[in-house]
């Protein structure tokens, strides 16, 4: 109480200050600005029952509907998954998985029949999934040369050190270099629909439009610019060791060949986690009257090239439709519902606590600290 008697000192100072400041020396009196005097106007929020409790209830009220919406959306997405690794002796791919060798000339094929219980109405996205595959290992992630992939001629001839030990082979630079490119997924998946009357029809799969636009058009470029003759552009380089064909023979479509082959681009976008799925093909809806994939029997024909058994990996094929929030993932919906409910519950608990202790708080006895 005593101290505040000095609060009017400012005024007092200004009176005598003018007297003292009459001399030639400028007064050393500090400036009277809100900043220097620490009087900046400010908003001083305090946690009170009036703000905290409604906040909890409102958050609860917002979250639960969002959660339900997300959950329903996710549930409406249809997804179908086949594990075709072939670990089980009864699996059609068992043989292929057993007798794998990198340099076999004859591709091993296996076909897996399955039955779709419900029709897939809209565009269907076909993914391959790998498990226990450490695409996010530090040494793996950095084993690439982005400037080579961007069509830089110099990097094409002299791949970055990061690509080691897949930078050169037989004294020739590898294009594309690095462990990521070398380990590119190279199974071929084909889908056949078996009519109820027994005829097998192949379902057309679209191989383009599966990579990010930026990747396809900015990040990845073939060497030699728009030169149509890719073979010439890749002259003097060699294919990655595990590949069966060089990069310029990945596809017949020149817009989807070489470094801008979309399968390749998708593979090069490394996954964050050791279990991942990557978009393989899109099954376009052709006819609005007929579902894209009607209910019935199908066969998945696999050209089994990619070995995963050695590291306990799994290979899957997934069909999925999508919604505005992407693929099937019930987690967000459940999480929102849970958080919303917990918020609501917390609100109730806090209300109870507040009610219980409110009386004590209303007359704070500061001196008895």
């Amino acid at each position, binding site marked *: 109480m005593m101290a505040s008697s*000095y609060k009017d000192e400012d005024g007092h100072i200004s009176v005598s200050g003018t007297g003292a400041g009459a001399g030639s020396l400028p007064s050393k009196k*500090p400036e009277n600005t809100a900043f220097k005097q620490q009087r900046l106007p400010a908003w001083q929020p305090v946690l009170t029952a009036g703000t905290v409790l409604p906040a909890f209830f409102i958050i609860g009220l917002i979250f639960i509907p969002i959660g339900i919406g997300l959950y329903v959306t996710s549930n409406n997405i249809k997804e179908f998954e086949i594990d075709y690794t072939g670990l089980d002796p009864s699996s059609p791919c068992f043989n292929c998985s057993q007798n794998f060798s990198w340099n076999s000339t004859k591709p091993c094929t296996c076909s897996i029949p399955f039955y779709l219980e419900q029709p897939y109405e809209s565009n269907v996205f076909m993914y391959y999934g790998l498990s226990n595959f450490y*695409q996010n290992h530090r040494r793996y992630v950095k084993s690439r040369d982005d400037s080579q992939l961007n069509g830089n001629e110099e990097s094409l001839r002299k791949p970055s050190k990061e690509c080691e030990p897949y930078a050169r082979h037989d004294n020739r630079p590898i294009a594309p270099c690095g462990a990521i490119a070398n380990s590119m997924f190279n199974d071929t998946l084909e889908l056949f629909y078996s009519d109820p009357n027994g005829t097998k029809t192949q379902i057309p799969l679209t191989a383009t439009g599966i990579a990010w*636009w930026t990747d396809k058009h*900015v990040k990845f470029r073939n060497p030699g610019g728009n030169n149509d003759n890719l073979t010439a552009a890749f002259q003097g380089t060699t294919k990655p060791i595990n590949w069966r064909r060089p990069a310029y023979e990945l596809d017949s479509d020149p817009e989807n060949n070489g470094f801008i082959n979309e399968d390749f681009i998708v593979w090069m976008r490394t996954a964050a986690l050791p279990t991942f799925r990557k*978009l393989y093909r899109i099954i376009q809806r052709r006819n609005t009257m007929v579902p894209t994939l009607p209910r019935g029997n199908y066969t998945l024909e696999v050209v089994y090239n990619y070995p995963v058994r050695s590291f306990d990996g799994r290979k899957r094929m997934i069909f999925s439709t999508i919604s505005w929030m992407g693929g099937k993932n019930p987690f967000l919906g459940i999480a929102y519902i849970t958080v919303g409910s917990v918020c609501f519950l917390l609100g109730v608990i806090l209300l109870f606590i507040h009610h219980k202790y409110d009386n004590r708080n209303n007359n*704070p006895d500061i001196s008895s600290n």
Partner: protein
Amino acid sequence: MGSVVSSFGNLCGKEKKQEEERHLRANDRPFNLSYLYANNAIKTSKYNVFTFLPLNLFEQFTRLANAYFLFLLLLQLIPQVSSLSWFTTAVPLILVLSMTAVKDASDDINRHRCDRQVNNRQVNVLTDGELKKEKWMNVQVGDIVKLESNHFVTADLLLLSSSEPLNLVYVETAELDGETNLKVKQALTVTGEMGDNIEALSTFRGEVRCEPPNNRLDKFKGNLTVNGQTYGLDNDKILLRGCTLRNTEWCFGLVIFGGPDTKLMQNSGKTTFKRTSIDHLMNVLVLCIFGFLGTMCFVLAIGNAIWEVKEGSVFTAFLPREAGVNAALSSFLSFWSYVIVLNTVVPISLYVSVEIIRLGNSFYIDWDRKMYYPKNDTPAQARTTTLNEELGQIKYIFSDKTGTLTQNIMTFNKCSINGKNYGELFDFSGQRVEVTEKTQRVDFSWNQLADPNFIFHDYSLLETVKEGNPEARAFFRLLALCHTVMPEEKKEGELNYQAQSPDEGALVTAARNFGFVFRSRTPETITIMEMGRKVTCELLAVLDFNNVRKRMSVIVRSPEGKMTLYCKGADTIIYERLHPSCKKLMDVTTGHLNEYAGDGLRTLVLAYKDLEESYMDGWRQRHHEASTAMEGQEEMLNELYEEIEKDMTLLGATAVEDKLQDGVPQTIEQLAKADIKIWVLTGDKQETAENIGYSCNMLREEMKDVFIVAANTAEGVKEELQNARRKMCPEAAEEPSVIKARAGLFWLQKTETVRDEKVDGDYGLIINGHSLAFALEKDLELELLRTACMCQTVICCRVTPLQKAQVVQLVKKYKQAVTLAIGDGANDVSMIKAAHIGVGISGQEGMQAVLSSDFSFAQFRYLQRLLLVHGRWSYLRMCKFLRYFFYKNFTFTFVHFWYAFFCGFSAQTVYDEWFITLYNLMYTALPILSLCLFDQDVNDRWSFQYPQLYSPGQLNMYFSKKAFVRCMMHSCYSSLILFFIPWAAMHDTVRDDGRDIADYQSFALLAQTCLLVVVSAQLCLDTHYWTTVNQLFVWGSLATYFAVTFTMYSNGMFLIFTSVFPFIGTARNSLNQPNVWLTIFLISLLCILPVVALRFVLLQIRPTINDKVRHMVGKEVLPSPAPRRPPARRISTRQSGYAFSHSQGYGNLVTSQGFLLKRPLKGRSILFTQTDSALAENKPQQYRTITEEVEESQSSHSW
């Protein structure tokens, strides 16, 4: 006598001759140069243009943090280990290094400038028979230099001759030892004879042999050989560099030590660096963090080994190992890789930010208008910028009295003449009126010699004098005659008094204004203007003051021939010597004295006695015999004094106010409410100190007891302390309970803490210097500490500067509490340096205290603002900063830890490298700075309203090891949310067009965006004070993040720097997905809501004092300040009215022949120039040395 001294010195010189000794010859440069002594150039700067970079870098890398980052940088250059690009460490490191380098460079440039200025000072040097101006730096050992008044002493000189009689010179040693009084040095007669005879001086070939350079300021040993004769040299003949010549027209000196060899320079550079307790805690924590980092890396390295064996070995088809790397080596490498990845737990920006915050808070102190003192245009100043937060943790304040609590201005306030009380004002109803600035003053303009600064408010006294009241006239005549003041009249009518004690000056000035002007004195006479009439009285004897007599008398003969003894002194002493007829008057006067004492005034009683001519003749005869007696002189004189000073007639009493500074009692009250203990350490007398104690509210009537410890033996002191303790706390254990603990870096420091003991009621303790000396001994110090800490108020009086420091150290050592020492004078320097925080009162004469202080301002009352507002805020801000900073960095880092389990422990980072680089530097730096520069829980007025808000700081409540652990747990929670929610949300998810979004780059972007949003939200939650700047920085940082991210992930950046920005397109492709934003939103709420809930619950269940006050701030308006009530008069038993800061020895001095006769015409009163400094009262022995000098010179002169 001189020869005895010199031969003695000679003897010493020979006996103590060391191997190294300085040998020089005056005016013989070639001879002196052969010894290669340092010349007078000094160098305090550290670098020059060429050495700056290497030396400064070396110095910076000796700091642990910088060295650590250099080490990291080197690690990153190893490709097998490097998990991050080099720039993540290099960019911050270079930034920090260059900032520090710039600061160091500017400091050093200043030092260069200072050095150059000092080195280029001019001095007259005697070369080739004539005086030439020479730069200081070119002065060599053995040169003879001429100094003039107010010149700085060039180097350590042997004084050869001076303009003053007896070859005296007066020097001020303030720069050297902090004492502002003048000291006398005297040259040898043999050299002094040369005077200013240039020829004699230039042919002078004295040879000096002396001790080698050392740092003992008070000792010098050596001898001077002139013409085969050898004379001893001691400290009295040496002028030290750093002193200033005063009141001496000129003097000649022989350079003995130059530049770096001078005692000044040998003494410098010892200043200990003060660090705050938060600093120490921070160092400990950083070490803990290092340990923690090691543990994390070790765990991950083990994980890596396991992974390599189980998974990596079979995954080699796709990810071959490098040649020669097996699981063990890989795990070793991954340890170091993780050291790099997780290095953000010890962020380099921590130290930089801490410095910036402290600097900012120091500026606030400099800028505070409420700590600006307009009277002498002094703003507060934070002289150290590294101690701010400690201001919020002060537990003990040690205060000087004179000049700190008091203004060191004595004013004649009241008097009682012949039983009538003057000096108080009453209104018509007879009520006492408080004197304010506006109260009408008595007009003294009728008196041409009146001191215009003298203020008195009671007209009746002047009227009484003018009426010719004999007692009143006698009263003032006494005041004009009985003193040891020296007058100085430079111009006719412009009188200036040089008083040895300020109270005496006040009394003489009062007499002057009431028409009894003390005009001049000679050894035999005193001339006064008595109501305009010149009266010259013959001064027959001065019965000097001493501590036992506690009185002073003069015997004068008036022009009419009447002989009178005038006496003034302590009431108790005078009362014993009064004539019985004064009994009635005595009673009345006693009443007045009690009143005065109750107001905290210093009182003196005045009495006189008319003397018979016949008796006086005899007495003077005996007095002469006694004063010339060879033995027992003092006793004989005392006896004579006793004989004549009796049966006196009481005249009245004076009351001199030792003016307290404005607002001192209120400040002390406030600080006491903030649970800060104030100890007063003063050189003053016990009575004075006690008086002040009462008047500034430290000692109060309602105190249960005030113990006075004034024993003269160790046992006595012990007993008194124990008695006091037993009385306060009978149940306390005899042995103090000492908690022994270890603290500090590596727990190397041993600490002993004496616990606080609870005492009912308030007690006070007064201990005098003599007892304190015993109490500070090893075996009694704990006893002292316990007793003193039980008391509310502790006053130590008559303490030496050293004891002041010892007391501070005692409390520091055994209380582990933060101490603050505040003082104004040179005698406070030691305690200011000893305490955690030293505060100097600036704007007064001496600057010593200010120069060695950490903070300075002009008025004691600003202390409450410094502590309760600035200190509290600084502490709050610093703690908030540390808590938040550790939170944000741990959260950042722990996410990497969790990710390790999903990436084969390969030290893959979760975030983009650029984000890692810029996170601390750019995205989170400014918001936290704005938080820590602007935050206040409640504003300054509320802080004053509730000083209790200060206590959490004293108890280290806001940041401690516990708080740190809480921070870590909070981070752990946040990081779990931050990793596993994106993990679950993104796992197996695709974009709304079916393409990839669970890729590494999108995941990194999501994780880092979430992290930034969460830490920003947490910051918002921690901010109590939202200014526009805070808003700007928080939103600005987020905006910057998005802007920078989109820029770095843009096509252009990729096409230009293909390998540096591989994240092209990630921002566009993933931030347009609704589920990404839903995830960010979910994560933010999940991180923030529990904190809000927890805080709310704590607020409800266990509100802290801050919460309570903040709650009130929201609701109420600040209660208007209570009107300042006039200090209640203390109706008290008088402790002792006597308080008179006087010292012995002046009676002789002012009457001594040599002193007065030799005085040149121009008024020069060197002895008294500085006497109103604190030192004058504290160290009478200072004056004694001068007196002795004068006496000695006198005697030698008469020989």
